[in-house]
């Protein structure tokens, strides 16, 4: 952290930060756009439950189009590029190595967003593959895969060429995530889309892929970031290295080999193995909670004041809760209760938004002023956004989790007519729509800050360019 004392030949912290500027702006800017689009789509999907006739005559906008598009816009549009951007910066910063050849990650970031666009359009025109979290048709997936490889390669090149050789826990989590995505994404696309396997093997692979991407990948990247930022904000080293090591391995081991729901029409050993691993997931979750507690409790670090520290702390708590829910839903009686209900949507949102997105907000708000060299245009909005995001996700998750249990109780009682089951969930769905509205507001504020910042930078660039164009005409004459 005392980089300024390095010998003058070494790149300064500022040089390292500035080297990440353009790729990170490309990743985060597009991400913010998809985040807003995703929450708008989620809102449309949610309204359809209050008014089934809403936009019903538009074949592009049925619930079955809009809901997967909203999910994918959040995951592929925001979570993955934001995670990659934060990983790039963390590698450069921790390894004390400026990012080189930034044209490649910039192109790759734009390619990634193009891939998301192609994929979303594909879903809307009915080209969805039909597998959850893998809906993007093959064109979009191919672009995404290629863009990811480029970004991951650049991150890895920076990692392997790092000048500060010591590895820290963030490195393990981020490297594992960088490496795991191409593996699962290519497996899923090759075996489900390009050369589809037969029968239920398709859906086994789709469930495995979905869990590994939505739960494991985001956990690895989010924790990788949290394990860098939390000690930094708390002003105390990560407590402790060995807990983190233990959490890392158990998370990989138990977190990756699961995802098949109980009662699925597949050979019984698959849901059983999944459930066992989900139960054992309590081990890394407890270890991670202990790390958070020991690192933060009583630390004389900075106060959070609704800024990045608050966000990352909230994200961390949300991760622990999400892990506990994964544990709970692997218990046979509870899983029997909440299967096929809205509880699943609550869990996904807790993981993707409550944990990952809010952690990324915090990380991005911390990173942005450093890579730009000036403060955020609307620093006060950060605090407002923090509250909107937290309130929104809490309302959404609590409403759908409770609603899901209510729905499950009624679904499991054959004397309750199905129409009554649906009706009993509607109040909870209304509450969840309120949550979505708050999250939309938070996302808009995030996008506003980010785009205003980019605009400010571009204006400054234009001014410099203008000055550069107008100035030299006189100078050479003077020197000549």
């Amino acid at each position, binding site marked *: 952290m005392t980089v300024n004392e390095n010998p003058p030949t070494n790149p300064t912290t500022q040089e390292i930060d500035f080297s990440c500027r353009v790729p990170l702006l490309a990743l985060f800017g597009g991400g913010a756009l998809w985040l807003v689009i995703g929450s708008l789509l989620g809102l449309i999907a949610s309204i359809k439950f209050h008014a089934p006739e809403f936009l019903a005559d538009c074949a592009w906008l049925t619930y079955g189009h809009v*809901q997967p598009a909203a999910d994918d816009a959040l995951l592929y549009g925001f979570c993955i590029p934001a995670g990659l951007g934060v990983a790039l910066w963390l590698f450069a910063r921790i390894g004390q190595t400026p990012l080189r050849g930034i044209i490649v990650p910039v192109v790759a970031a734009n390619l990634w967003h193009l891939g998301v666009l192609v994929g979303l359009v594909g879903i809307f025109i009915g080209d969805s593959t039909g*597998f959850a979290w893998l809906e993007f048709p093959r064109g979009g997936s191919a672009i995404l895969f290629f863009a990811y490889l480029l970004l991951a390669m650049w991150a890895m090149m920076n990692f392997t060429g790092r000048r500060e050789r010591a590895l820290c826990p963030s490195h393990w989590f981020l490297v594992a995530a960088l490496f795991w995505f191409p*593996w699962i994404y290519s497996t899923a696309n090759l075996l489900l889309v390009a050369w589809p396997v037969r029968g239920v093997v398709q859906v086994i692979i789709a469930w495995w892929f979905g869990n590994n991407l939505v739960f494991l990948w985001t956990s690895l990247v989010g924790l990788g970031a949290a394990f860098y930022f939390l000690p930094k904000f708390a002003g105390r080293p990560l407590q402790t290295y060995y807990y983190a090591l233990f959490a890392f391995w158990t998370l990989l081991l138990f977190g990756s080999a699961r995802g098949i*729901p109980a009662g699925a029409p*597949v050979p019984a050993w698959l849901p059983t193995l999944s459930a066992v691993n989900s139960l054992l997931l309590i081990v890394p979750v407890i270890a991670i909670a202990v790390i958070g507690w020991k690192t933060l409790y009583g630390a004389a670090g900075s106060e959070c004041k609704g800024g990045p520290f608050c966000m990352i702390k909230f994200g961390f708590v949300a991760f622990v809760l999400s892990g506990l829910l994964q544990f709970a839903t692997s218990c046979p009686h509870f899983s029997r209760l909440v299967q096929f209900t809205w509880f699943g949507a609550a869990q996904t949102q807790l993981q993707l938004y409550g944990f990952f997105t809010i952690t990324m907000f915090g990380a991005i708000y911390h990173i942005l002023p450093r890579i730009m060299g000036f403060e955020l245009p609307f620093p006060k909005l950060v605090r407002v956004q923090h509250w909107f995001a937290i309130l929104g996700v809490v309302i959404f998750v609590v409403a759908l989790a409770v609603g899901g249990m209510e729905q499950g109780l009624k679904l499991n009682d054959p004397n309750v007519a199905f129409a009554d089951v649906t009706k009993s969930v509607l109040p909870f769905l209304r509450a969840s729509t309120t949550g979505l509205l708050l999250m939309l507001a938070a996302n808009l504020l995030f996008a506003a800050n980010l785009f205003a910042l980019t605009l400010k930078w571009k204006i400054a660039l234009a001014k410099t360019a203008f000055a550069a164009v107008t100035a030299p005409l006189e100078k050479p004459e003077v020197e000549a």
Partner: protein
Amino acid sequence: MKNGFAIFFAAFVVLGGSWCAFVLAPELQLGGAKQTSVLNSSEVYPIQRSGDATLGLQIYRANGCAACHTEQVQQDDVGCDMMLTSVGKNTNAVHEAYQSYFNTILREHLVGPRVVDSIDRIATNRGPWPGKLPVRILAPVDKFFADLEADKIAAAGGKIEIQIVALGPDIARGWGLRHSVAEDFLYDYPVQPGSLRAGPDLAGVGAWMPDLNSQLMHLYAPRSVVKDSVMPPFRFLFEIKKIGDAPSPDALNLRKEFAPPAGYEVVPKPEAKELAAYLLSLHADVPLYDAPFTSLSASTNAPANKP
């Protein structure tokens, strides 16, 4: 953990293990799955869907129907229904044996939600035989108890047939006769078992809603068929056109409040017909080795109530 290679290698091993367990092993086990034979029958299952239904699966996929509907019936248990098929000559002896449930019954032999129901039935069935055979005398009990009682009644000269039934809320709702199994999806691409029941399970919709016209009307105007449905209408799969010289044979027979203005008719587009054909092709209702039940044409085994 001090160098990058160690992380890379160990992560490779752990994650490779996950890949082997959840991608490679299922593919080895099920990738070459073939048709199986239907229990107690020479037929094979599943049969390839008709052309229309196969196209309809793609309409189902493209519109994301699986976002709200599952295609997986769940089952808690199996039980035995005891059907009395013959009382023989000595009706009283059979009756005695039958009534001895009350003396010997062990509640733990009764399984599933119909326990109270069956006890009530026994209590009210004390009179002489109504003469109608076969009659279900106790349901559902476990196999041990069913065999025990069947022996008793056989000794008294009667005849008992034991039927295997699936139990659970989904079965009681009439969504299927057994739980869904891998075989049901053998020919599907993509396989879409769904994960949310915002709408009912569709694994057996072709059996519990077998009428093509109802299916089409339900797609066009869900609330014309199911009163409080929250399903959005899929009107874009239909055409509203002026009635020509004669009404077209495909036109939907809609109730007044859902019908188009006079002189117009609602005709399904090919997509709607294909989707309906797919829905009608969904009736996982044959017994298999891994999901047994006694298949009866007799109406006694019909699903209890329609959802």
